[in-house]
Each structure stands twice: as C-alpha cells, then as structure tokens.
C-alpha cells in the first residue's frame, strides 16, 4: 500500500473508533478526536518506519513500542497522551477489526464446517496449552522475583 492509501485507511479506521466509542460508550466525537489522532499518528509513523528499516519486524511491534515510548516518563507530553488515549475505550477500536476480520474469513466457512471434531479438539488444546504454559511460567518467575 502507498502512504496515501495507508493514511486514508487509517482515517476510515479513526471514524470507526469514534463511532464505536460514541455508540457503545457515549463518548462524544469531539472528546474522542485527540486520542484517535494520537493513535493514528503512532500507527502511521510505525508504517513509515517498517518500510524504511531493512530489518523486518511486524508493523504492530512498532505501534506498541512507539505507544509505550510516548506514554513513558521519557516523553514530555506523557500526561496529555495518557489522558487523551484514556478517552478511547479499550474495546472501541476492536469492533471494526472484527468487521474486517469477519468479512476476510467469510469464504472459509465451508472449509471450517469440513474440519472434523478432532481438529476442533486439537485447536482448543493448542490454545489452552499456549495460554496455560505461559501463565505457569509467568506465575513462577513473578513469585521468584517477588513481584507478586
């Protein structure tokens, strides 16, 4: 995608976030705007960096790192960033993700129906195993390092 396409797609996403934040959480559009602009700016900068840097990392890794950076004590605008982003409800950006994701898997429905119970069971085990094993290790290390 070209930068201009990314930029316009992000703006559409911003409209989606504002809409979800208003319909679901009664936050006015104007109150959502600063937070959304910050999120979109971080996203756009991440896209630019991921295209420029030869070392390939997923775009979302940059989004997360830059987000962390601008909200960390290193950033002079920290308070503003945290307050503005705080207006955006946690799940508000997700509804649009779901809409696109739903459309994008809609042609796999028949494939899904063809999967037998064995694969369903294994998929469940894979998810349970991944989550539980991470939780066990985290629990042990957090205890050992006296964080909890």
């Amino acid at each position, binding site marked *: *995608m*070209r930068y201009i396409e990314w930029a316009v*797609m992000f703006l*559409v*996403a911003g409209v*989606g976030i504002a*809409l*979800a934040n208003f319909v679901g959480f009664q936050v006015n559009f104007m109150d959502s705007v600063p937070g959304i602009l910050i*999120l979109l700016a971080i*996203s756009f900068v991440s*896209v630019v960096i991921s295209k420029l840097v030869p070392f390939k*990392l*997923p*775009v979302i*890794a940059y*989004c*997360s*790192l830059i*987000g*962390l*950076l601008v*909200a960390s004590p290193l*950033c002079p605008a920290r308070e503003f*960033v945290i307050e503005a*982003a705080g207006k955006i409800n*946690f*799940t508000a950006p*997700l509804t*649009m*993700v*779901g*809409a*696109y*994701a*739903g*459309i*994008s*898997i*809609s042609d796999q429905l028949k494939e*899904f129906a063809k999967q037998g119970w*064995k*694969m369903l069971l*294994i*998929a469940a085990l*894979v998810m349970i*195993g*991944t*989550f*539980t*094993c*991470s*939780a*066990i*290790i*985290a*629990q042990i*290390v*957090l205890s050992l390092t006296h*964080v*909890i």
Partner: protein
Amino acid sequence: MKQQEFMYSGLGERLKKEWKIYLAALIFIIIADSIGQIKIPLGPGTLILFPIFYSIFLGILSGPQILKIFKKPEVKAASKLVIVCICPFIAKLGINAGASIETVISAGPALLLQEFGNLGTIFLSLPIALLLGLKREAVGACHSINRETNLALMQDVFGPDSPEARGSLSIYIIGGMVGTIFFGFMATVIASTGLFHPYSLGMASGVGAGIMMATATATLSEMFPAMADQIGALASASETISGIDGIYMALFVGIPLCNWLYGKLEPKLGPIHDKLAGKGKGEK
C-alpha cells in the same frame, strides 16, 4: 509487512472498489456497539460477549457463502484492512503499557521467560493428536498457535501441499472462526481456578494473535477491574515480544521440538490409536 506489488493503481481505485466494505464495517459497528456487552455465566467461567464478536459474525454472514453481499475480491481486500485497524488498537495498548511502565519493567524477567510457555502447548496437544490418529498433520497443527506468520512458515518449510501445512491451515481456520470467542472464555475459566495472579494471566494473553489477546485482555479486565491497567500493559508487552520472536521460536524451537517428539511418540501412540479405532466404532 512484505514488500509487494500494489493491489490498486492508486487511492481512487481503492476507494471505488472498497467503499462498500468501509460502509458495511461502520454499519456493523453501529449494530454491534448498540448491543454492547453481554455476560453469560457458563460453568466455572463467564462467557463475555463483546461487540467484536457480533461484528465478526456479521462479517461472516455478509460474505460469499451466505448473504453474498461481498464476493471474493472484497474478501481479499478485507483481509488487508484488518492490519490497518489493529494498528491503532495496539498503539492504544502500547500507551497503556507506557502508563504502567513500572509494572512492565518489574515484570521484565517473567515477561521474557513466559514466551517459552507458547511452546508448552506442544507437549499437551501433540500426544493427543497422535492418539487421535493424526500423522504429520499433527506437526503443523501443534507447533504453535498457528496465526498468519506460522501458516506462511509451514508452507515455506514443508511446502504448500504438505500434510504439515494442511494441519497448520486447519488450526488457522478454526482459530479465525471460533478462536476469538474461545480464547476469552478459556481465560475466565483458567482465571476462576484462582491458581494464577492476574498479572500472569495478562502476560499469558499475549500469544502472537492480536485479536485473541484483545478478547482475553478485555475479559480479564472485566474480572479484575482494579488491575485492568496492569493486565492490559503486560498483555501488550507480551504480545509485542511474541510478535517479534514468534517466527524464530517456531522455526528454531517449535518445529524441531515437534519433529523430535513426533519421532519418539508416533511409534508408540500410533498403534494405540489403531487398536482403539479397530475396537471402537469405525472412524473415517
């Protein structure tokens, strides 16, 4: 993202071909967020339905196999748009992590080490897959949580027509259809055991699948509202690390471990399956 040829000649063509998708997404948002959250107690856990589930459902409904509002090209276009929407969400999580930076730093060692937990699933799922009679498909299915990068990796390593890639694709499809809702529910069941601190659960949510992490985090935040910020911060940090190391973990540890375990277990568990299948009612 990989460097690739442009799908469209320019912004104009993209908007002309995709405006229906944007419009549908906005309509889905109005419907989904009007319904809002629904909590359903289910066994030891709580099934919390978020607007994202309704919008996924509406998206699937509108596709070429049911309502046929969208056809194949739009399905393809939508899959490219997912990343656009997930970016601002991850940025939001990054900000949460920055706001709770002390928690993230103090949890540093745990954050790094729990990444290896993502491999733990192999010891649980592979033996059972073999008992169920799967062969090499099991290696693809069990080596990781099988999101996009893993799918590409399996096709690259074993070939697109290999049983390993087929196994990976199966889990990928199931994960896409029901993974989001299952992952959130599973998190509440495991949380309700009381064995784990909410911080551990938050970290465990970051498995390299943004949408699954999102529902697990949202669900856990509902269960532990007082620690919602820290849970989100740790989940986001863990997800970021998984996003970076996931492909290397799978390539250098996950796949070799699966191969090794397969070689050890298949000769033992394969015959057990055959015996059970022979005795029980016939399987396909």
